[in-house]
Every structure is written in structure tokens, then in C-alpha cells.
């Protein structure tokens, strides 16, 4: 009677596709916002070319929402989409701690960080050999997903809040920890591109390696194969 176990929990799949839409809207509306003032600064303040550490290029219309320059409309989209993005991330964190997806499939062990093990993993990756015994994801995937869940996406929320003048009065330490409002704005921009970088590599890897299989998995849940179970489970140990 028991149904075959799914590879991806419903929570993971719901988060994944909600997040995709949010990221695309936030990134593209963010690039429109960036066109509003194309310089980045460190510290609390900055407004003139001599204060800037980066002159940002103007992003063309096909990269932005809306597809012409409109700071107010881009901000509308950004301000709205920040909600589903941040709430979905929060719910995903709760879900994957509760259903132990995080502990089971994403946390790494000290053994995996040994240089020889890392090197073997990189070589396997370059051979497009992703069939890895002893876990749903191999080491590099775990590190990448861990970074995305643990650093890149939360940093988008934290830096986004730190640059909001209505947040600072009750969360001032956040802006301070991030080095001041203009530093937080620079970090917001940098992490947005880090997320974009992950996105490109991530989608490229899905495309080169059994795209339909993986996509189906991420939509329907797929089937949990023997090799997807953590090594410890296979040996019957408790983790």
C-alpha cells in the first residue's frame, strides 16, 4: 500500500518554482532600479562619482521589468515580490528542518571536505558523472545548495531590509553589521549577481545531464532511488 517515496518533498517543489518566479521578477526589476542611480558606494553614504567604487553599466530594456526605464513601476514589482520570496524562503527553511531534508541531503560531513575527496568530486563533475552513491546530492551540489539556502538568498532579504529607511529605526544593528546603508546596497547588488551566477550554472547542469528526468523530478517529486539515500541509512545506521 505504501506509495514509493518521492525524491523531492512537496515543500521543496513548491518552494523551488515559487522561488524561480520571484527571483526572475526581483532580479529584472532590480536591474531597472539599478538604472536609477548607476553607482555603488561603501559605508553609510555616497552620491557623487568620487565616492563610488563601481560605475554600473546601464542594463538594456530586455533585461529589466518593465522593459523601459521606470523606477516607480520597477519598485512596485520589487516591493510586491519581496513578500512571496521572503516568506517562501522562511517556510522552506522550516519545512526542511522539520522533514530533515536539510540535515539528510544538504549538510556535509567533515570527511567530504578532505582535499582528496573534494578533488575526486570535482573530477567526477567534470566527467558529468553525477551518479553518486551515498546521498541525494554529491558534495559540490550540497555546497552550492547550502550556499544558496544559507547565504545568498537570506542575504538578499537582509540587505534588502537594511536599505529600507522604514526598517532601520527598529533593526538598526542590521544596517550597521552590513557596514552602513550604501555598503548594504552594494552587497544587495553583489549577491543579486551571485544568485544569477548560481542560476546560470545550475540550469546549465540540469540541461546537460538528463534534463527531462530532473525536471520531471522537480515537478512531480520523482522517485527516491536506493542511491539517493544517505550512506548511513543504507548501512542501517542512525544518523
Amino acid at each position: 500500500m505504501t506509495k514509493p517515496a518521492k525524491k523531492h518533498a512537496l515543500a521543496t517543489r513548491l518552494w523551488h518554482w515559487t522561488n524561480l518566479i520571484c527571483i526572475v521578477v526581483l532580479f529584472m526589476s532590480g536591474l531597472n532600479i539599478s538604472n536609477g542611480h548607476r553607482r555603488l558606494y561603501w559605508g553609510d553614504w555616497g552620491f557623487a562619482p568620487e565616492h563610488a567604487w563601481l560605475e554600473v553599466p546601464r542594463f538594456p530594456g530586455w533585461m529589466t521589468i518593465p522593459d523601459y526605464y521606470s523606477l516607480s513601476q520597477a519598485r512596485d514589482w520589487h516591493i510586491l515580490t519581496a513578500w512571496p520570496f521572503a516568506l517562501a524562503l522562511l517556510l522552506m527553511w522550516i519545512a526542511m528542518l522539520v522533514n530533515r531534508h536539510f540535515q539528510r541531503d544538504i549538510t556535509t560531513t567533515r570527511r567530504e571536505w578532505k582535499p582528496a575527496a573534494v578533488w575526486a568530486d570535482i573530477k567526477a563533475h567534470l566527467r558529468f558523472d553525477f551518479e553518486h552513491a551515498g546521498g541525494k546530492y554529491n558534495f559540490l551540489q550540497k555546497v552550492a545548495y547550502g550556499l544558496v539556502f544559507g547565504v545568498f538568498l537570506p542575504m538578499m532579504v537582509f540587505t534588502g531590509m537594511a536599505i529600507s529607511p522604514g526598517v532601520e529605526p527598529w533593526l538598526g544593528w542590521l544596517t550597521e553589521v552590513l557596514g552602513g546603508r550604501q555598503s548594504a546596497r552594494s552587497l544587495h547588488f553583489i549577491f543579486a549577481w551571485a544568485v544569477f551566477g548560481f542560476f546560470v550554472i545550475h540550469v546549465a547542469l540540469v540541461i546537460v545531464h538528463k534534463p527531462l528526468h530532473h525536471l520531471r523530478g522537480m515537478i512531480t517529486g520523482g522517485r527516491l532511488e536506493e542511491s539517493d539515500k544517505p550512506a548511513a541509512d543504507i548501512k542501517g545506521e542512525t544518523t
Partner: protein
Amino acid sequence: MKRRNFLIAIGAGFVAGCQKIGDTAPGKTLLEAAPNWHKAVHDALGGRTALAPEFGPEDVSPYFRGNGSTNPTNGDYQAQAEAEFANWEIAVGGMVDNPMRLTMANLRALPQRTQITRHDCVEGWSAIGEWTGPQLSTILDEAKVQDGARFIVFRCADNLNGDDYYESVDMLDAYHPQTIVAHKLNGEDLPIKNGAPARMRIERQLGYKHAKYVTGIEAVASLDGIGEGKGGYWEDRAGYQWYAGV
């Protein structure tokens, strides 16, 4: 090349889709409501009294950028400036029991607050300056705001691209301790580019809320019928968010 065109096509399709959704009634409603969700959270957690950060004298920017109107040429502003704003008056009215006309001398005679704060423009830049002026709450208490009033509207002398500048805030920000009518920047009379002779400081919101060249302070029950009804020049003209705390 083909793949790139394909990607651009997907991107363009997505953007067009967004724009379609944004044009539907529910889409518009959502986009307009979202700033209020942020405001509800900010109000709940920051409340009436949470202060925007204040800085030390060593943090003040070497100069203070002016934006929007930087030298109004409409009306009698230039003549007023010539006379060093000796005849400038700020009309305090609307839903108040005790309407007043404040001269710059009246303004300077009130208890003053000096604060070094950071000014954040909606475009993205920030500058730090030291502002001095009476708290708006002092003026509103003196004018005796009536019970039904829900917003304070600021009237301005500058006409930008054919429309008079104005702004508005709710009572939470109007009575906030850091909301002052500033007439000094860094210890000097306010420069023209920064709003001489008097401008608002609404420290928990973006720069366009900080009305410059203030000529009127008006208590109202509703923003309908003022300008195009959205509560401010940039709100009416280009759809900027009335709540500018995000």
C-alpha cells in the same frame, strides 16, 4: 546565436506577461497594496517613536546634493530669495482650530531640534547632514489639529514640470520626534538647492517625502481632491509609492 534569441524571447515573453498582469485590476490592486503591507510591519515594529539613526559630526558628507527642484523660478520665489526670505510665510491650516501664519522668525523662536541624519534618495544614493528646526508636533499642537484629521499635507513653492510640488504623511510620521521643519543645514541657513528657507525632514522615508520650499502645512481627513489624490507630486505624476519606507 539561436539559443540566445530563444532566451531573449523567453525573457521578453515573461516581461510582457508581467506587464499584462500589472495592467489587470487584481494585478494593479496587489502592486498598490504591497507598500502598505511593508508599512503595517514597519509601524507595528517601529511604532511612533523608533528613531532613524543619528550620526556624529565626523560622519557629515562634504557637501549635500540637491535633487528635483534646485532653484525654483516660478512665482515670487526669486524675489523672496533676494529679500533673504524676510517675507516668507508658512500657512498652517486645514482641519485645525487655530490656523496660523508662521514667519521664519516665528519658526526660529520655537524650541529647536538638531539631528545628524542620513538622507536616502529613491534613486539609490545617500548623504548625511545636520538639520535644525522646530518639531512639526510643536506646530501641530499649537494649531490644535482636529480629531478627524488623518494626514498632514505640505504645500511647496516650487513648480516642477508644470505641477506644484506637494507631499503628505500620516499622523504617525507627522508627530514623530524627528519630523522637523528644518531651516538650517550643517549650521548654516538652508541653501536654495536644499529647499530654502524651510523644508521637511521625514527621516524614516525616502527623499521625495521631504518636501522643500514649504509654504503650507495642512491637516486633512483624506487625500482625495488634493492634486490627483495620490498624496504627493511624484505619486501623482509617475506612480511613486506614497509610503516610501521601502
